């Protein structure tokens, strides 16, 4: 319950900042940023929100379903503009993905270094799982 209250309080704070102060971000994004800041500043303990937050992120798909059903209202328009929609969904998604990955590869430290760094950061992780993922990733 505490986690739920925290999520709603930050959502509400985001709304206030958006409506009254005029912060030009969607209110839910403002709430998210405030909560990240509060977690880093240790004003909010991770344990307080972790459980509620993981429920919401795990079942996020449910909350989209009514909006998707709204496609019926737009069916005519979507089929009229199907070429635009198809090019932007297929081309746009692939373009964004490749550009992002290229920038990351360009700026990243060498992979070996990064692996060691990650090992240090989370010594609890078993090396076996990493090997497994790696192999699976290539064979797919």
């Amino acid at each position, binding site marked *: 319950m505490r986690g739920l209250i925290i999520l709603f309080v930050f959502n509400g704070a985001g709304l206030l900042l958006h409506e009254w102060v005029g912060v030009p971000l969607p209110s839910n994004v403002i709430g998210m940023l405030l909560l990240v800041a509060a977690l880093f500043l240790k004003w909010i303990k991770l344990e307080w929100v972790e459980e509620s937050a993981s429920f919401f992120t795990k079942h996020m798909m449910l909350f989209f379903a009514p909006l998707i059903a709204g496609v019926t209202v737009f069916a005519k328009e979507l089929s009229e503009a199907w070429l635009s929609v198809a090019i932007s969904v297929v081309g746009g998604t692939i373009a964004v*993905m490749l550009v992002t990955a290229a920038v990351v590869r360009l700026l990243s430290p060498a992979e070996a270094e990064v692996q060691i760094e990650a090992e240090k950061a989370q010594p609890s992780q078993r090396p076996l799982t990493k090997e497994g993922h790696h192999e699976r990733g290539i064979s797919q």
Partner: protein
Amino acid sequence: MNAEFLSNPVFGVSLTVMLYGCALWLKQKTGWVHPLLATSIALIGVLLLFDIPYDDYNAGGSVITFFLGPATVALAVPLYKQALRFRKQLLPVAAGALIGSLCGLVFNGLVMLWTGASHSLLLTSLPKSATSPVAIEVARMIGGRPELAAVLTVLTGLFGSVVGPRVLRLAGFRQDAAIGAGVGTASHGIGTARLFADSERQGGISGFAMALTAITTSALALPVSWLF
């Protein structure tokens, strides 16, 4: 069908939750059913079959979409956890998400312009690489239509989660950071969920990139929309 109870919010809420439950069960049974896709198709099927007006259903449907607000705030938790774990890669991933999401905004606008789509479709399509609650709010903010934005966003997420990892591998990307950032920036939560199934590292980076994309898209969508 025209009955009083259909416009009672309880109808929309219970129908949606019930179908979502069935979709989760199917996913567990088969392993490949996409819960959101299955729920949505079943929902549309029921509405069409019984000739239920969307507005009636949405009395309850909007109660469910209301929870996208706290769900987006909840993304702060994975963002915080991943930021602690991937310190070295934060800068490259952040730069990738920033440039990638800017590229997405401009690319979507140009495609809509070249293919002669309506101005409202153009505005609606701009933020579709951001996570849906953000894309919906951004579309509303810049003068597009929220429901249509949700549809385009989910199509983008589904497409990215299906082809993303394969396309990136074919293009020669092997680093977890590059794959995670690419999929997270282009196809938000749906792509991230897919990566989590394969690799915790890629999923974590993808979640981080998705949160950054939510921020950059919210900040950049308005200025980019003035270009068109």
